[in-house]
């Protein structure tokens, strides 16, 4: 289907083709699903909620509940206040969450709905909560929506009693439940008392029990979110995703934070280890040292296979940067790093990586789309493509090995249960990248060249 993509790059000023991002609200919905007994609420047309739930269901293969204000013509003229009021009443009546997390849409933003005022006017049942964030779809991407929702929770709920609770606040970034589980495992290995926020593990990877739980056992609890203001420090993972909420928590309650890259690959995971080691004033636990050693061991075993191979990595900014770090450590060249989310910081961080590893002719692009990525690849071949399912057509058209990573993966099963973060996640990605390259080598080998031992 991509035989129409011309190799010749031409200036496009108005047309986005095959996007590498989506709009803010779905990020907000994902963040809200990482809060225990929270129902995300989309303040806009009912299509928005339906699309977001569909996307999340297609990625996680799990139910993703969210309600909608169901805007009509009337609401778009007179404002959505009445719709929100009815929604809050109905949601608490029928779905009985502990909290409703409202996010806006392009429509409610454009007509100028004042959510703060609306919520103040609503009679909220005793013991229940309603919070909101603004997620105009025409600003930023789903990544902005994700951190805006986090910031919304913090500004409504985080409190400071004045006495530190000795806990670390940890923001995992826009990652899968499998990654969040891995981050929690690492934190536990350090003996840390922590609050991971948000936490979709136990929600979007909840086990099959024969019962449908609208609110599975996982998610950051409201008490934990309230306690964020008394945490000793925040570890904000994902420099382009977690900075904003960490900063909000600092401004509001003076909680200092360390901004770290997503812990993907050896050195970015080392950064997390060092930070934890400093915060907890303990050595890196033996089991994690061992995992690091195993990752490096396998890297060394196989390094000659992938050394010098060229990769294109696309997806969400922090995920791409993290995977780029791993790819570089493997001795590969991240020829194209591309994200649809806008922000020059992505390019700056990518170029720092290129410089540190002394690689040449690599290109980082922000606010870009996959049509452009395809054109770039046509002009300078790569040996492997790493990214979301949306890359599969490029991979097929150009006959390039393809490793799925990031969100969304719509066409494979089980991926969201496994990490790409931490040394374990690094080992998993290493295995998958290595397998993809070696499978290709086997596929293309002449019979006489097919090696049993590689």
């Amino acid at each position, binding site marked *: *289907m991509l*035989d*129409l993509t011309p190799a010749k790059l*031409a200036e496009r*000023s*108005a*047309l*986005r*083709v*095959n*996007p590498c991002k*989506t*709009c803010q609200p*779905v990020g907000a919905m994902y963040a809200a699903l990482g809060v225990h007994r929270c*129902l995300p609420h989309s303040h*806009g*047309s*009912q*299509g*928005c909620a*339906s*699309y977001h739930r*569909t*996307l999340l*269901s297609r990625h996680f*293969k799990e*139910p993703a*509940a969210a*309600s*909608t*204000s*169901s*805007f*009509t*013509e009337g*609401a*778009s003229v007179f404002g959505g206040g009445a719709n*929100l009021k*009815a929604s809050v009443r*109905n*949601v608490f*009546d*029928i*779905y009985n969450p502990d909290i409703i997390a409202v996010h806006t*849409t*392009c*429509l409610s933003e*454009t*007509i100028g709905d004042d959510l703060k005022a609306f919520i103040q006017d609503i009679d909220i049942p005793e013991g229940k909560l309603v919070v909101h964030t603004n997620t*105009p*779809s*025409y*600003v930023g*991407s789903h990544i902005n929506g994700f951190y805006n929702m986090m910031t919304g929770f913090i500004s409504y709920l985080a409190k400071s009693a004045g006495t530190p609770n000795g806990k670390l606040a940890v923001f995992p970034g826009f990652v899968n439940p499998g990654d969040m589980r891995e981050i929690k495992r690492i934190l536990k290995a350090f003996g840390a008392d922590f609050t991971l926020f948000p936490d979709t593990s136990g929600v979007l990877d909840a086990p*099959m*029990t*024969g*019962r*449908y739980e*609208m609110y599975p056992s996982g998610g950051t609890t409201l008490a934990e979110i309230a306690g964020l203001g008394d945490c000793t420090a925040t570890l904000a993972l994902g420099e382009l995703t977690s900075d904003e909420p960490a900063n909000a928590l600092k401004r509001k309650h003076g909680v200092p934070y360390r901004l770290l890259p997503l812990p993907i690959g050896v050195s970015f995971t080392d950064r997390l280890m060092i930070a934890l080691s400093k915060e907890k004033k303990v050595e890196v636990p033996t089991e994690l040292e061992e995992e690091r050693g195993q990752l490096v061991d396998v890297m060394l075993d196989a390094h000659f296979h992938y050394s010098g191979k060229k990769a294109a990595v696309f997806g969400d900014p922090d995920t791409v940067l993290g995977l780029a770090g791993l790819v570089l450590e493997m001795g590969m060249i991240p020829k194209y790093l591309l994200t649809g989310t806008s922000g020059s910081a992505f390019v700056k961080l990518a170029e720092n990586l290129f410089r540190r590893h002394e690689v040449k002719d690599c290109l980082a692009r922000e606010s870009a789309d996959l049509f452009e990525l395809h054109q770039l690849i046509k002009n300078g071949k790569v040996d492997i493509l790493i990214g979301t399912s949306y890359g599969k057509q490029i991979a097929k058209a150009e006959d390039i090995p393809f490793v799925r990573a990031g969100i969304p993966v719509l066409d494979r099963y089980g991926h969201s249960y496994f990490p790409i973060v931490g040394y374990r996640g690094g080992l998993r990605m290493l295995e998958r990248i290595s397998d993809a390259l070696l499978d290709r080598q086997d596929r293309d080998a002449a019979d006489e060249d097919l090696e049993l031992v590689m």
Partner: protein
Amino acid sequence: MGAAEILDERKASIKAGGEAGIKCGSASVSGAVSQRACVYCGARVVLNPITDAFHIVHGPIGCASYTWDIRGSLTSGSGLYRHSFSTDLREEDIVFGGAGKLARALREVAEKKRPKLIFVYSTCIVGVIGDDVEAVCREAEKRHRVRVVPVQSAGFSGTKSHGYRLACEALMRLIRPRQGTAGKEERAGVNILGDFNLAGEMWIIRNYLREIGIPVQAAFTGDSSHDSLIRAPRAALNLVQCAGSMTHLAKMMEAEMGIPYMKVSFFGVEDTTTALRRTAEAAGTERNIALAKAFTDRETRRLCAFSEKYRPRLEGRKAAVYVGGGFKAISLIRQFRAMGMETMVVGTQTGQPEDYEIIGGLVGPGAVVLDDANPAELERFMREKGVDILVGGVKERPLAYKLGIAFCDHNHERKHALAGYEGVVNFTREVHLSMNSPVWECLGRAR
């Protein structure tokens, strides 16, 4: 009904089998976890299978990215429709207006690609910020000499069904200029309305019609192209398969072009046979009628033998159906009955009163019928009625699995063709595989 967890506003939309007067076609209740999408979605799903058209979404990026390659419509020609095109409106466009950006996008497409057909979908905020999409499209059509058809599909302007109507009007706009190309006496064959070639289903229906000697002029919209669609005024009869989405187009074509229409369904042995025989009677000669009878008899015998094999594994089991349109729900109830299964829960997103009347007559008094059901209601009634399998779409699949109920996708993510006699084979196998999978043996605790 009347249990605590059913909203008062919803009670009129839930009836027992045989009870009359279900409330349908209204907007979802605010605060509902509705399974429904919006006007834009309705318009997009109908038009998207037109393979060689540029489908440009005028709005912020979300509406384009969520509908990118949205349904598994197959193509025998261009793959253009599987790309995502959008004006990706940003904050400055919201402030200063997006019409200029749309005009530039149209120019970029028209000059570089020289397409024959462009659809422009306006999303929620386009009307609010006041872009005159109609004028931009008209201007581009003149300047670039390409058909540019605007679809004013603001999400909030009605239900998904309203989007279907808008799609029908866009299609009418496309074919209207070709109205005079055939006189009444020169008209021959049929148009197929409302099949989207999911998993190649349009090809199956075309093969059947070829088998009985009825020519097909145009197909709306599965595996269609600009050139094939504009042949539509040459047909003598419109066959409407997905009545929910396409009846409006059929009615317009009848009023403006004098082409009569007939509602048909190609789901299940009974309905497929009826559809082919009635088509031959309405649009063919004695020869076509004889061919249809012979073909459908042969296929029915073949399917009978096939179904007998599966019957022992299916008989007596209970089904729930939650689909888009009412006509499909009706076919599925009949199909399950032919398999020896009873449908206990029936829901649709866009069913019409007349559909619900038929449904009410088909199911037993123990069944429940719902319009625009939400997951809580589906869960409650599936449990209450003890169903073994749910037929639905993407959002219902994980819900069913979590409840320990088997599932078959009869929507965008169907894995195999479900139309026609082939579809009966696939459907039966899928229902059997899911209900009788060894995975159900693993439920519960370690033992």
